[in-house]
């Protein structure tokens, strides 16, 4: 289908896209979303141009990395996945000992020239290694494959959860889980695992967590009991979104947002600003853009010619959905408050870079098909 399109239209853009191994549909959706996001950020930051300029710089850097990732051949991605995974684990362990503490959690590794969270690397590396491993096996996955993959996922997830960074642990865990899910873990296995996990939860609760972590999680589950902390966020966030109405109060006009009632309003809670200023209508549009991106990713996954590509592209797209769902759910008061940003819109560099690189890999998967067939 694409071949015929290619031969017909030989526009310059199309040729550039092909040369760079990019997917024009996905790329334009991502750019629209990022630019839209910068606009919201301008309002959320209290019209701070410096913040927007910094965010734009990050977008440009992240897009360059996307192009780079799109040009890594599929074979290479499979080869480096083990090394990326091991390096990520090593850095996670290093963070336990040498990491910098911020807001009570130890997440940052300072390498002198750059300061970053190693857990971000695992967001890419975990689905990569599981997909690499399973793509060499017969599907649907058997018991041995299931055990090996679960261990591969569990090690980094536990390390990250102990930092403690629950949000990232959920994202890394679900990325790994999605690969397994797509690779066809049987339903009865999934159900029994789910039962087992919920049986083990009290044990984990008792032995694997520190006191203060338990407290933190307890307040997450019942925000209204903690009106000075996250409960306050939720109450104010709901007022902001609800007062937005159908069409919103208009860009830069959200009183809740502009008067500083919403904490973390340029990072995790940016969707409340959006909801207040753009209303229900705006929210639908925004979510549709996200859905388009996710479905494009799933489409590429479905049309990939080998299992590795199918599993990886599918898992990345589904993880992207988890970001969206957890963040909007938390801001709308449906889910507990965990630190998950609104993807590609929240202020901050690390998640932007990892997400864009993930999409770069999806594009690489898409191109691989065309050269193979």
């Amino acid at each position, binding site marked *: 289908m694409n071949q015929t399109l290619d031969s017909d239209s030989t526009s310059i853009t199309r040729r550039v896209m092909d040369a760079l191994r990019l997917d024009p549909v996905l790329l334009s959706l991502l750019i629209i979303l990022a630019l839209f996001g910068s606009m919201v950020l301008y309002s959320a930051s209290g019209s701070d141009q410096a913040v927007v300029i910094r965010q734009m710089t990050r977008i440009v850097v992240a897009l360059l990395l996307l192009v780079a990732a799109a040009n890594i051949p599929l074979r290479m991605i499979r080869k480096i996945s083990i090394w990326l995974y091991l390096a990520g684990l090593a850095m996670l362990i290093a963070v336990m000992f040498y990491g910098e503490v911020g807001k009570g959690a130890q997440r940052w590794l300072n390498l002198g020239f750059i300061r970053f969270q190693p857990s971000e690397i695992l967001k890419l590396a975990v689905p990569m290694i599981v997909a690499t491993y399973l793509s060499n096996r017969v599907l649907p996955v058997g018991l041995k494959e299931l055990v090996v993959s679960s261990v591969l996922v569990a090690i980094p997830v536990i390390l990250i959860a102990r930092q403690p960074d629950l949000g990232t642990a959920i994202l890394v865990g679900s990325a790994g889980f999605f690969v397994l899910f797509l690779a066809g873990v049987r339903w009865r296995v999934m159900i029994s695992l789910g039962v087992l996990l919920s049986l083990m939860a009290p044990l984990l609760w008792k032995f694997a967590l520190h006191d203060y972590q338990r407290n933190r999680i307890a307040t997450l589950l019942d925000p209204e009991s903690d009106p*000075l902390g996250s409960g*306050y966020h939720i109450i104010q966030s709901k007022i902001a979104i609800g*007062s937005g109405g*159908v069409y919103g109060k208009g860009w830069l006009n959200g009183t809740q947002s502009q008067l500083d009632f919403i904490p973390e309003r340029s990072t995790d809670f940016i969707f409340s600003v959006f909801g207040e200023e753009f209303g229900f209508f705006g929210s639908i549009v925004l979510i549709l853009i996200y859905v388009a991106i996710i479905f494009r990713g*799933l489409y590429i996954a479905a049309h990939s010619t080998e299992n590795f590509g199918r599993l990886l592209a599918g898992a990345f797209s589904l993880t992207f959905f988890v970001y969206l769902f957890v963040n909007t759910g938390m801001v709308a*008061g449906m889910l507990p408050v965990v630190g998950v940003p609104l993807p590609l819109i929240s202020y901050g560099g690390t998640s932007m870079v990892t997400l864009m690189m993930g999409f770069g890999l999806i594009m690489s998967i898409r191109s691989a098909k065309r050269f193979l067939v």
Partner: protein
Amino acid sequence: MPKREQLQDDYLESRLIRRRLVLSAIFIVILLSLVLGRLYVLQIVEHEHFSTLSDSNRVRIKALPPTRGLIFDRHGVVMADNLPAYRLEIVREQVEDLDNTLLQLRQYVEYSDQELKRFKQSLKRRRPFESIPLRLNLNDEEVARLAVNLHRFEGVEINARLTRNYPQGAHAVHALGYVGRIDERDLGEVDGVEYAGSTHIGKLGLEKFYEHELHGTVGVQHVEVNANGRTLRVLDESPPMQGNNLHLTIDSSLQKVAEEAFGNNSGAVVAIDPNNGEILALVSMPIFNPNLFVNGISFNKYNELRDSHQRPLFNRALSGQYPPGSTSKPFYGLAGLELATATKDQETYCIGFYKLPNEERKYRDWKKQGHGHMNLTDAITQSCDVYFYDLAYRLGIDRMSSFLGQFGFGVKTGVDSTGERNGLLPSREWKRRHEGMPWFPGETLITGIGQGALLVTPLQLANSTAAFAVRGTRYQPHLVKSVEKVPEYNRIEIASRVAGRYEIQKQQNWEHVHKAMVNVVHGLRGTAHGISQGLEYKVAGKTGTAQVFEVAQDEEYDEETVLEKLRDHALFVSYAPADDPQIAIAVIVENGGHGSSVAAPIARRIMDAYLLERS
């Protein structure tokens, strides 16, 4: 059952994955519909409700800071309490032009740039309707001046708040530590919610170590405010819970005796009950007034304290590391007997110096003309160096450091305070690691009289002496006797913990060294004979002198000509009553010269106060 086909079948597999992809897509649609449904409820169905809330946004949540727990000495004397103090506070959202207001306020009350910086920092992390302190501890005159003009400043308030106070000022400051204003670094270490209303946090010492006990639990108040942000009424309140009280092992009056005994000297004293590790007095001299730090010390005052050559801010008792000098000799003496390297009657002839075989270098005794024939008792009583050079040579560094290690040298005692240091117990291994050099025999000799690389903190020395006093059982020293839990006011005793135990091989060995130490004080030729006059109980002790700088081979140390700050440190360790030890003490007087003349009398005054006045 047929065996499963082991070849990969791409068609089947791709169909499997596609099926799962489609399934995921359906899930996604369902879950996002839920989110949209929720938004529909919030934004369309309940829009009116939230719109009203947003317009008025009248209900505010305020944090109520808890009152900090009190600190008492072992007899109930108040060491730290809380007093109401006036503060100048500003509510940001009520102030139209903040910069201008800050400028104008300067006409009525002074505040430093430091205070302004702190204010701006808090401004960032507190909500706009919270009152943020600009100046603490206003005096009456300032309050009066401000009160008259307050009507001109919207959003500026004078509030009385409970603030930490140390009623006895400088007394026991190094045992207690102090609180100060919360800064960014503190916030990284604590739960931000618990400190939402607090302005102070333990910065040092007990106050920091027991922060989790002392702080208490934050309270919450839901208040209705008018359009200007003024509180109209309280809708709902859960009051804060006061922090737990601490009852110390410290005896305030004993501590005071120790502080006074020092006069103008610098140094440290630690007194411990050897039967349970309770610290009875922990003194580092000079002392300073911690109340200065509570409300933000001025730069000038701070620099003055920091740059004073006596270094009052330095907690010598926990962080000062000194060579133990001759106070280490009883431990080596016991090592010699226990490891059968020496016998109690074996004699060494002291000619005033010692030479290693095949070496020219002279290791000098403090007594130039020598002590003559010395057995172990004489050598401890008169503190003969040559005897211990020889003993050290025979013991060897490995056995010396492992023996001292069993009495707690070189490791933290684990006291419940901040800033404790390790001291240093040198060994071959240590030297190779830190200096990349082999161990030289000469160093063994110097270590044998408590000089060279060997270092102890006064607390460590007191605790090792205490362990010696009770024949080898070493407790983990502690400052807190019990925690009084609020609101039940029941006291939870802190149990004494044994940190280590040296099993004595032969009790006669211990008794022999013990008697020699009694001789140090009560014997005619004992180096601490000076304090024995009028003693109503028996004391076992050992004097020591720690060199601050090394005397060259051909020079002599002359006390008179040496600058004061290069003069030797005077040390004295002791325990009493000798037959049933109730108190063990280590005294270090910096640049005090000899242990006998300066340090021992301080210990005597403490023992008198503890043993005589108590009964």
